């Protein structure tokens, strides 16, 4: 954990929130409250198991009583598949893929959305079924949500290898699922968004450029350079303390803040040259989020590299504003914008191979 001399920027006070619904829901329960129970360095396996059980139990509690609208449920079918390890880890355990298949024939090949859930220290993509089903229904897309391996027991690049395996599986099964293998959009929130960027770097090595990325509030750097890296919520929301233990949990203490760790693991370790030919990126950034400044810096690099880049900074929000508490107007607007970003990427090929 951060030391006593660390200068925190305490943002627990709701005055930091946009007046109205955001401010009234500023301190809603978030999954970040469980980070220390699972990721604190030195925990025993029993303690980690207990923390993870609490985390997953809390998710079940939040979701209990919430049912998907019948018309949305009826718009598609759920399926489960298992993918073998990717080329970089062929002996990896089989990867569970939670898949939403839209009903109806549609016209031609379907677009595919890779959905990477957040946190990664437990849980499963099924917790986000409503969002997954909505994308599938509205965009006529096959949505594939891989249940990548949980940290801290398993560290990077295992999780990136899992996402790589899921991407390869989608291409290999494109005929079976009627997917357009050239129209795969990577999407995710928080660590899921970070790994979407990491996968784009990984695939670049193999000459593959996904259709684009739609990502929300990714942590992209472990150097804690910008002022936003001091934002704290005293472990009641995602703040600098949670980021620190996440780095240790996710890719190991020995690798934290080492610039030589490649951008497929820590995206902002890239140079502008590394980003030439990168797929288009739509990124949403939150004002009171410790990830804010590095996200802006990363987008600046994308722009310098000539990559089509959309960046929306939401004022008066924190990392969890759109992922906790009740639905209200601004949240609905946010989700509509994210979906519209994905729609733009599906309907238009915005890649710029000439910039590479």
């Amino acid at each position, binding site marked *: 954990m951060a030391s006593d001399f660390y200068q925190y920027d305490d943002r627990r006070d709701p005055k930091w929130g946009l007046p109205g619904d955001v401010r009234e829901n500023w*301190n809603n329960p*978030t999954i970040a*409250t469980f980070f220390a129970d699972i990721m604190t360095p030195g925990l025993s396996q029993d303690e980690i198991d207990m923390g993870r059980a609490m985390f997953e139990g*809390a998710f079940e509690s939040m979701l*209990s009583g919430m049912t998907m609208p019948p018309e949305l449920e009826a718009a598609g079918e759920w399926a489960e598949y298992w993918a073998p390890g990717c080329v970089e880890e062929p002996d990896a355990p089989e990867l569970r893929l939670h898949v939403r298949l839209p009903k109806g024939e549609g016209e031609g090949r379907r677009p595919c959305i890779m959905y990477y859930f957040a946190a990664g220290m437990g849980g499963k993509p099924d917790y986000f079924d409503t969002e997954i089903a909505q994308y599938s229904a509205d965009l006529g897309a096959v949505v594939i949500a891989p249940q990548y391996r949980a940290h801290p027991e398993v560290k990077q690049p295992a999780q990136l290898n899992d996402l790589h395996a899921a991407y390869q599986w989608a291409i290999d099964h494109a005929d079976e699922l009627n997917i357009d293998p050239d129209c795969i959009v990577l999407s995710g929130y928080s660590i899921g968004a970070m790994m979407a960027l990491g996968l784009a770097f990984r695939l670049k090595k193999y000459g593959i450029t996904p259709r684009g990325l739609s990502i929300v509030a990714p942590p992209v750097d472990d150097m804690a350079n910008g002022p936003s890296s001091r934002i704290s919520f005293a472990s009641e929301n995602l703040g600098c303390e949670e980021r620190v233990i996440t780095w240790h949990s996710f890719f190991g203490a020995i690798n934290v803040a080492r610039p030589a760790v490649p951008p497929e693991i820590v995206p902002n370790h890239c140079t502008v040259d590394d980003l030439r030919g990168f797929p288009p990126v739509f990124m949403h950034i939150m004002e009171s989020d410790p990830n804010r400044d590095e996200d802006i810096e990363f987008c600046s690099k994308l722009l310098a590299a000539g990559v089509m880049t959309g960046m929306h900074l939401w004022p008066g929000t924190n990392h969890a504003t759109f992922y906790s508490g009740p639905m209200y107007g601004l949240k609905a607007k946010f989700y509509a914008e994210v979906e519209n970003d994905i729609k733009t990427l599906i309907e238009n090929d915005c890649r710029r191979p000439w910039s590479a």
Partner: protein
Amino acid sequence: MAFTNEEITDILLEAVGKAIKRDPATLSPDMRWVEDLNFKSVQGMKVCGLLNYKLKVTVPLSALIECATLQDAVDMLAGMVE
């Protein structure tokens, strides 16, 4: 699995103690969530998670925070695990 009221009380006090970082021995069933424990819904998530884990039932967060005292929560949980 059946639980006695005493067992449920112990499990709840342990969960609350863990959530608010307080020795469960200093807690009693007549305590009120907000007035006596300064309880926040953030901490309710942890309590629900631990209850789900120990009691093998899904406790809705909304139901937990509607209970005025810890004893009210014990009574609700006793009905759920029957």
